[in-house]
């Protein structure tokens, strides 16, 4: 972290380094790759939500003209999975299918048309099994098991933690609020459909180009599935045409094309169609949640008990982490002295859920922020004032042992209150119009990697030569968020050159140092810190050489504007190119590496590894709504949002991330839902996706978007590169609850579930007219068999971060999974 506060590149609004390629059609996405002798793959998918495969006959398909290869589950004996605790997927199902869309077989043919046609020639005999459609059904039918590796029935993960005696805290509270909320699942809907190309190089090694956010993890899992050494597999993450978490999992089709390429010795491409992207999913978990919150008369929270029930879909995916995330970050926003958190993820016969922007945290944030609105109402405290009163303090530990560093939330609240004219509007607008406020927090990268190891989370390498050329290598993946621009911008700032003179080579496991991937808002902080380290190391070499040339000392050499100056004698200088030449003469080839690992988390209990982060970002949001009481139609004229970003590296991109988050949040609030229906009994009665098309899966268009007033609150965080926190995910979180709270202000009804559709508003208005509780939302929370909680005293109750009812964890040694 540089102590400087004046920069040449950082903080300046400028064209992103990859901007030109994106507007000229040069950016090469995975489906743009065409290779000589390339053939095309298509996947046959299960028409049944749950069935046993009795037999597969591929002979007719294999004999069809133009077909090169047919693959089935027999070709893939080894499972994969993104998390080591749930390696539960096969590239092609060998004997069991678990959702409509589960891959069963693949055809590789001369073109897509031929491959698609040959899918019809594969004869599969199924024995249909009972379908589990909902988490409640999954609990009620432990006899119908979707998987057999989990401990009990269809419970995938089941967790309970208690940080201080919450029941005692609630019993001693002036008020206890109990609320149940439901957040419907929704999907990422990146405009780019997933594509991948597998190929064999001249040495017989494998290369996979893919629309993936996590090339390093794909490399590990492809090695596992294909039984090939990791070092013989190169994954190239093409720039993603949108990710949002939808390209962070290992995909069946990636294994299929790589295996096919290996078998055929020629390149094999696949591009999923839109319907298949809905089946691949890995999107937002539907979550039912119950909050019991104790509150003192002054509004301060005395304790919170949160229960969540996740509908996980058919596979593990990131679900073990998602389960923790429905509670791990509830404590970093407001002061919550005691906290109990129980979470359970169920398997159901639907596409697997996983991480979508905010990963597991938007659901409980939705509940908590609406409940705070209800608390404020009851206690006659302004909801903005209430939040200001209870905002968490900087440099503290939370009840569940998360370490908060900087927190700019109070300033964010003050900014949106002032800019939206909140005080003049809240409770004062005419009926039908209203404003709502909500806040949120998100992490800047996960504190622990997905698989246990003690190596860096991000590595950056710099290579300079006598031409003055600077090339930076990093495994980070450009998914539109601007990671290449962050990388080039940081290197350019450190070396005093123009970011457009830095060449970025990223997301290629064959060339670049490992970065764990574009997820959990980790790239700016982790890659950025590694880039600063690499840059400073190179700069030290350059400075030594320049000092020798200019009769000065290295500590006096300053790099700026493409030159190296002697600080107290600016007439003495070399061009950057001359500086590199001098260094190459003095030291030989010039380069350096940098790495970054997050600080050790204070939590020592098992499960405390999910939630810690080098820093947390904070957001406050005010939404104004206009509700038509006759139709229930919700119009949003304007949204004000303030985000604690630490420092905006490139304000154009930072603003774009905030507004994109607002957009996606508004879509989740008003219309987006990944939902399912039963086919009529005379068909198959199968549980199918209700609307696997972009036309039917509603998302906001340009006409639906309100004006957004974006405020970037800059208070540099010492753990972050130039103080910069994340901005890609956090700003989504407050949008949904702020909208729900605005509807309460506008028409006096509570919609405690998402999405908030006109139909639900009308239903609530009708209840209000009948004198009933004007609320639409889940009526109750089921009886979930949570385990006994792990007891972890909060820091102020004498804890040391360990559970008291469990033996302290020994420091585990990094373990590599056995080679299959």
């Amino acid at each position, binding site marked *: 972290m540089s102590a400087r506060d004046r920069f040449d590149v950082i903080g300046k609004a400028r064209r*992103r380094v990859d901007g030109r390629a994106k*507007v000229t059609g040069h950016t090469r*996405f995975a489906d743009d790759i*065409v290779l000589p002798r390339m053939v095309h793959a298509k996947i046959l998918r299960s028409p049944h939500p749950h069935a046993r495969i009795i037999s597969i006959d591929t002979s007719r398909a294999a004999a069809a003209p133009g077909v090169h290869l047919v693959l089935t589950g027999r070709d893939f004996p080894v499972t994969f999975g993104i998390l080591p605790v749930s390696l539960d997927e096969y590239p092609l199902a060998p004997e069991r299918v678990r959702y409509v869309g589960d891959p069963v077989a693949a055809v590789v043919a001369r073109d897509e048309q031929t491959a698609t046609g040959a899918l019809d020639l594969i004869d599969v005999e199924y024995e249909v099994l009972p379908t589990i459609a909902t988490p409640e059904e999954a609990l009620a039918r432990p006899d119908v098991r979707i998987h057999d590796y989990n401990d009990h029935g269809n419970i995938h993960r089941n967790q309970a933690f208690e940080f201080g005696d919450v029941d005692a805290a609630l019993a001693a509270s002036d008020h206890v609020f109990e609320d149940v909320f439901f957040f419907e699942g929704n999907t990422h809907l990146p*405009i780019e459909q997933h594509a991948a190309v597998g190929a064999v190089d001249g040495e017989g090694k494998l290369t996979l180009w893919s629309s993936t956010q996590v090339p390093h993890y794909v490399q590990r899992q492809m090695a596992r599935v294909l039984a090939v050494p990791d070092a013989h597999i190169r994954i190239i993450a093409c720039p993603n045409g949108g990710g949002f978490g939808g390209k962070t999992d290992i995909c069946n089709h990636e294994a299929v094309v790589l295996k096919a390429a290996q078998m055929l010795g020629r390149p094999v491409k696949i591009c999923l169609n839109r319907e298949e992207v809905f089946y691949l999913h890995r999107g937002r978990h539907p979550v039912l949640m119950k909050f019991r919150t104790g509150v003192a008369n002054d509004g301060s929270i005395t304790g919170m008990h949160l229960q969540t029930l996740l509908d996980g879909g058919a596979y593990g995916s990131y679900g073990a982490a998602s389960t923790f995330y429905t509670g791990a970050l509830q404590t970093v926003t407001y002061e919550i002295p005691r906290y109990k958190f129980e979470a359970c993820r169920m398997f159901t016969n639907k596409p697997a859920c996983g991480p979508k922007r905010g990963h597991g945290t938007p659901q409980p944030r939705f509940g908590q922020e609406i409940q705070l609105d209800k608390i404020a109402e009851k206690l006659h405290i302004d909801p903005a004032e209430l939040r200001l009163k209870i905002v968490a303090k900087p440099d503290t530990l939370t009840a569940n042992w998360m370490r908060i560093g900087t927190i700019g939330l109070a300033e964010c609240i003050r900014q949106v209150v002032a800019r939206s004219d909140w005080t003049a509007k809240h409770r004062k607008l005419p009926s039908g119009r209203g404003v709502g406020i909500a806040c949120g927090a998100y992490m800047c990268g996960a504190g622990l990697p997905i698989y246990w190891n003690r190596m860096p989370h991000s590595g950056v390498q710099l290579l300079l030569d006598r031409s003055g050329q600077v090339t930076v290598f990093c495994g980070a993946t450009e998914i539109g968020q601007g990671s290449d621009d962050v990388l080039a911008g940081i290197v350019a700032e450190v070396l005093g050159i123009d970011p457009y003179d830095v060449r970025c080579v990223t997301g290629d496991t064959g060339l670049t140092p490992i970065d764990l991937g574009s997820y959990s808002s980790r790239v700016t902080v982790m890659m950025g810190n590694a880039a600063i380290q690499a840059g400073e190391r190179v700069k030290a070499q350059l400075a030594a050489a320049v000092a020798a040339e200019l009769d000065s000392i290295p500590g006096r050499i300053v790099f700026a504007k493409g030159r190296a100056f002697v600080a107290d004698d600016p007439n003495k200088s070399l061009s950057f190119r001359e500086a590199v030449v001098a260094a190459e003469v003095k030291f030989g080839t010039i380069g350096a590496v940098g790495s970054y690992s997050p600080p050790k988390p204070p939590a020592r209990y098992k499960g405390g590894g999910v939630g810690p982060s080098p820093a947390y970002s904070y957001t406050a949001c005010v939404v104004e709504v206009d509700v038509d009481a006759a139709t229930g139609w919700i119009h949003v004229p304007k949204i004000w949002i303030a985000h604690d970003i630490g420092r905006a590296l490139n304000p154009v991109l930072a603003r774009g991330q905030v*507004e994109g988050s607002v957009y996606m949040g508004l879509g989740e609030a008003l219309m987006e839902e990944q939902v399912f229906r039963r086919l009529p009994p005379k068909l198959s009665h199968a549980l199918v996706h209700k609307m696997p098309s972009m036309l039917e899966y509603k998302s906001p268009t340009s006409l639906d978007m309100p004006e957004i007033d974006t405020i970037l609150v800059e208070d540099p965080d010492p753990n972050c590169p130039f103080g910069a926190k994340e901005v890609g995910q956090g700003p989504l979180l407050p949008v949904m609850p702020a909208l729900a709270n605005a509807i309460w202000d506008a028409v006096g009804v509570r919609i405690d579930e998402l999405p908030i559709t006109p139909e639900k508003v009308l239903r609530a208005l009708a209840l209000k007219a009948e004198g009933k509780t004007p609320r639409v939302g889940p009526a109750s929370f089921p009886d979930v068999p949570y385990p006994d909680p792990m007891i972890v005293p909060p820091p102020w109750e004498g804890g040391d971060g360990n559970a008291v009812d469990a033996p302290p964890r020994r420091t585990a040694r990094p373990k590599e999974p056995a080679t299959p």
Partner: protein
Amino acid sequence: MDDTGSKVGMQRNVQMVLRVNGEDCDVSFAPYKTLLEVLREDLDLTGTKHGCELGECGACAVQVDGAPVLSCLVLAVECEGAEIETVEGLARGATLHPLQAAFADLGGAQCGYCTPGILMTAKALLDAEPDPSRERIREAISGNLCRCTGYQQICESIEAAACEMRAEGSDAKVNSRGKA
């Protein structure tokens, strides 16, 4: 040649000249192919994208005779004799079209995947209406889905480009008058 009997009729390629970005391209393709497929697969113009191939997302928009058209819903054989313009034809040599420059500078492109379709749609708008209101811009691009930006920086980019193009237009008039 393929000789699988009755399928031959469907499989036999058509040959025609398509006029793309001002160039006459002699191209041979299967008659069922959409303009999108012929542009991407037979003319190597991969700048045009696809997000659904059902006319739902707008990523594949190109201009046909000046109008924005979803290339996934048009058969290439219908386009003989038409002027087809794609994102590859927007820049003049090394000089970006004002729309391209504005999108690159002002955050109009994040992942860049919907960008070619939106650029072509916006160009059709600005060619017809040099000074559109924000509302007109929002209407014009309402068939182009973007999941990254929230559309605000896209609208701002189009407005900035329109402003630039009007200035260029009046400069050009001044210049030509000056010369006259």
